[in-house]
C-alpha cells in the first residue's frame, strides 16, 4: 500500500469521495491510483489510528448500470472475504467501515512495502547468483505459505501478483537486516471469491506465476520455492499443483516452442 515517492507527492487532482471531505476527517494522502480505484491514507476514529480508504470512483466509460453493479458487488464481496480471512487466521487488513453505494471501503493501514519492491531492491541489477540467494528464497517460501493458507480456508484471490502482497517488517529491526524479513500480508482482495475447487486454486497460482515471470523475469528461476512451500501448506495442495500443470498446458496459454 505504499507507492513511489513521485506518486505519493502528486497533488489531489481527483475529486475526493464525500467521506473524505468531512471537516472532522484527517487530511487524506493519495497513496496510489490503482487499476481498481484510488487508495487514500487517512485515520479511523482517532487521529493516531491510520487507515486505508479504498475508493472506487464511478468509471465514466462504463455503462452506469454496469458500473454500479460491479462497484457494489466488489466492495461487499471484498469486505466479506476480508472478514472471513481474519476469522480463519489469514493475515489480511482488517475491515473498519464501508459504504458500498458510495463506493468506499475503510481498512487497516498495513506498514511496509509491496513484495514487488522488496524483490526488485534485492535483485538490483544482478544477473547471477539469484538461484542461490537464500534470503530471497525464504521470502518465496513465505509467499507460498501465505497463498497456501488462503487457499486452505477456501479463498481464491483472483489477482495474485507481487504488488498485491505487502511485506510488513518486524516491529524490532535487528542488525544486519536484509529488508526481506517480515510478515506477508495479502491485500487487494477486490477480485477474490470463495472457492475450494482445485481448478480455481490452480488458475490462481497460474496468474501468480505469469505475473511473477513478467514482473521479475530474472527471479523466475526461484519461483519453484513458492510452489514447494505451497505444497507443504495444506493437505489438498498437491492436487491443486497437479491441476496447475493442466492449466499451464491448456489452450492458448501454451507455448509451442519446440
Amino acid at each position: 500500500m505504499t507507492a513511489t515517492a513521485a506518486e505519493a507527492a502528486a497533488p489531489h487532482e481527483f475529486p475526493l469521495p464525500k467521506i473524505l471531505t468531512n471537516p472532522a476527517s484527517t487530511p487524506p494522502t493519495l497513496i496510489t491510483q490503482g487499476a481498481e480505484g484510488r487508495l487514500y491514507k487517512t485515520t479511523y476514529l482517532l487521529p493516531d489510528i491510520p487507515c486505508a480508504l479504498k475508493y472506487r470512483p464511478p468509471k465514466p466509460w462504463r455503462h452506469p448500470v454496469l458500473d454500479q453493479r460491479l462497484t457494489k458487488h466488489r466492495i461487499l464481496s471484498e469486505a466479506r472475504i476480508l472478514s472471513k480471512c481474519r476469522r480463519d487466521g489469514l493475515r489480511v487488513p482488517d475491515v473498519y467501515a464501508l459504504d458500498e453505494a458510495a463506493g468506499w471501503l475503510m481498512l487497516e493501514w498495513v506498514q511496509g512495502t509491496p513484495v514487488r519492491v522488496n524483490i526488485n531492491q534485492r535483485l538490483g541489477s544482478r544477473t547471477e547468483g539469484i538461484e542461490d540467494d537464500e534470503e530471497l528464497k525464504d521470502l518465496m517460501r513465505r509467499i507460498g505459505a501465505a497463498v497456501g493458507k488462503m487457499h486452505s480456508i477456501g479463498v481464491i484471490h483472483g489477482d495474485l501478483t507481487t504488488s498485491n502482497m505487502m511485506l510488513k517488517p518486524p516491529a524490532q529491526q535487528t542488525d544486519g537486516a536484509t529488508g526481506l524479513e517480515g510478515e506477508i500480508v495479502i491485500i487487494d482482495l477486490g477480485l477474490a471469491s470463495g472457492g475450494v475447487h482445485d481448478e480455481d486454486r490452480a488458475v490462481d497460482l497460474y496468474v501468480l506465476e505469469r505475473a511473477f515471470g513478467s514482473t521479475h523475469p530474472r527471479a523466475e528461476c526461484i519461483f519453484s520455492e513458492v510452489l514447494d512451500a505451497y505444497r507443504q501448506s495444506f493437505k489438498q495442495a498437491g492436487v491443486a499443483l497437479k491441476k496447475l500443470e493442466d492449466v499451464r498446458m491448456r489452450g492458448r496459454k501454451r507455448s509451442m516452442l519446440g
Partner: protein
Amino acid sequence: MAAAAVSSPLPPSTSPSSTAATTSTTTTTTTTTASSPPASMSSKSSWIALGCEGSANKLGIGLIRHTPTSTTILSNLRHTFISPPGTGFLPKDTALHHRTEFVALARRALAEAGVSPADVDCICFTQGPGMGAPLTSVAIGARTLALLWDRPLVGVNHCVGHIEMGREVTGADNPVVLYVSGGNSQVIAYAERRYRIFGETLDIAVGNCLDRFARVLSISNDPAPGYNIEQLAKKGTRLLDLPYVVKGMDCSFSGILASAEALAAQLLQLGPGPDGAGFTVEDLCFSLQETIFAMLVEITERAMAHVGSSQVLIVGGVGCNERLQDMIASMAKERGGSVFAMDERFCIDNGIMIAHAGLLAYRTGFRTPLEESVCTQRFRTDDVYVEWRD
C-alpha cells in the same frame, strides 16, 4: 531476372469482385530530407521489404522502405475473403482464396510501389499465430518469391507485426498494447527484449465472440461482423445482464457468448417488443459491446497500473471499434495518459505491418532459412527476441 513474369509492372486495373473488398493505401509516416545514396556500398542507407500476411481471412501484401531516419509505405494492398451471413470463414476456403489472389495482389503491390524485385531486400511473411491452412498458403507464396528473386525470407510473428506497426504509425514510444482481434486478445508490455503478455483471454478471442454472435443473428460479414454490430449497438439503449468475467489481468468470453446466444435465440423466437423478448437486436448488440469492452478496459487499466505506464496503443481488428477507442481514451485520460489508436488501414491485418516488423528484424541480421520457414498456428508473442529495441 528470373522473375520477369512477376516483375512486369501491371496497371492496377483489377476491379474488386462482388464478394471481396480490396483496399489500398500509400502513405508516408515519417519524412526527412532524403540524402543522396552514399558512394560506399558497405553502409546501406535504404532497405525495402515485401510483407505477406494471411493468418486469417485477409490477404495483405505491402512494400515498405526504411532509411536510417524514415519509414515510407510504398504500397499496402488487402483482399478480404468474406463469407455469407450466418457462416464463418473456413480454413479450407480461406486458404483457397489466398492461393487464388496471391499472385495478382503481389503484382499490383509491386506496380503500385513502383519498385522492381531487384530493389527488394527481403521477403517477410507471417509465420504465426493464425489459422493453419491460410498461413501455409501465404508462406508458400512468400517462399516462391524468395526463391524466384533469390532474396532471404524473414518469418514474422503476427502480433509483433501489429505492435511494431502501431508504434511506427502513432509514434507511441513505450505503450501498453491492447491487441484485440478475431484470433487474439492480449494486453502486452515491453520488458527486457520481449513483448511480455500481462493479460489475455482464457478461452476465445474477443473478435471471435463478436463474429460468432453475429452468426446467430445472421448479421452481415461485409465489411466485418464487428463493424455491423458496432452500427447496431449505436441504436441500442437497454443494458441486458450478461456475465462479466475478469480474472486478474485475464478475461474470458465464452460464457458471455453463450449468454448472448441464448438471449438471441429468445429474441428470434419471441420477437422484440414488450409482448416478446422485451428487447431488440440493437439492445443486445449494445449490451454485448458494453460488457466485453468494459472488461478489456479493465484489464488494460490493471496492466497500466501494474507496469506504471500511461500510454495505451490499441491494435488488431477490434481496435477499429470507435466505442472501444472512446472507452480506452476516457480511461487513459483519467490516468493522465493518452491513447494511440489507428484507422482500419493498419488496425486490420495488413501486409505492411509484416514487412515493417520483418525489416526491423532483417536489419539486425535476422533471417529465416527455407527449411525453418514452417508456420506455427500457436506462436506466442513473447517467443520473439526483440533485438531491435533497447
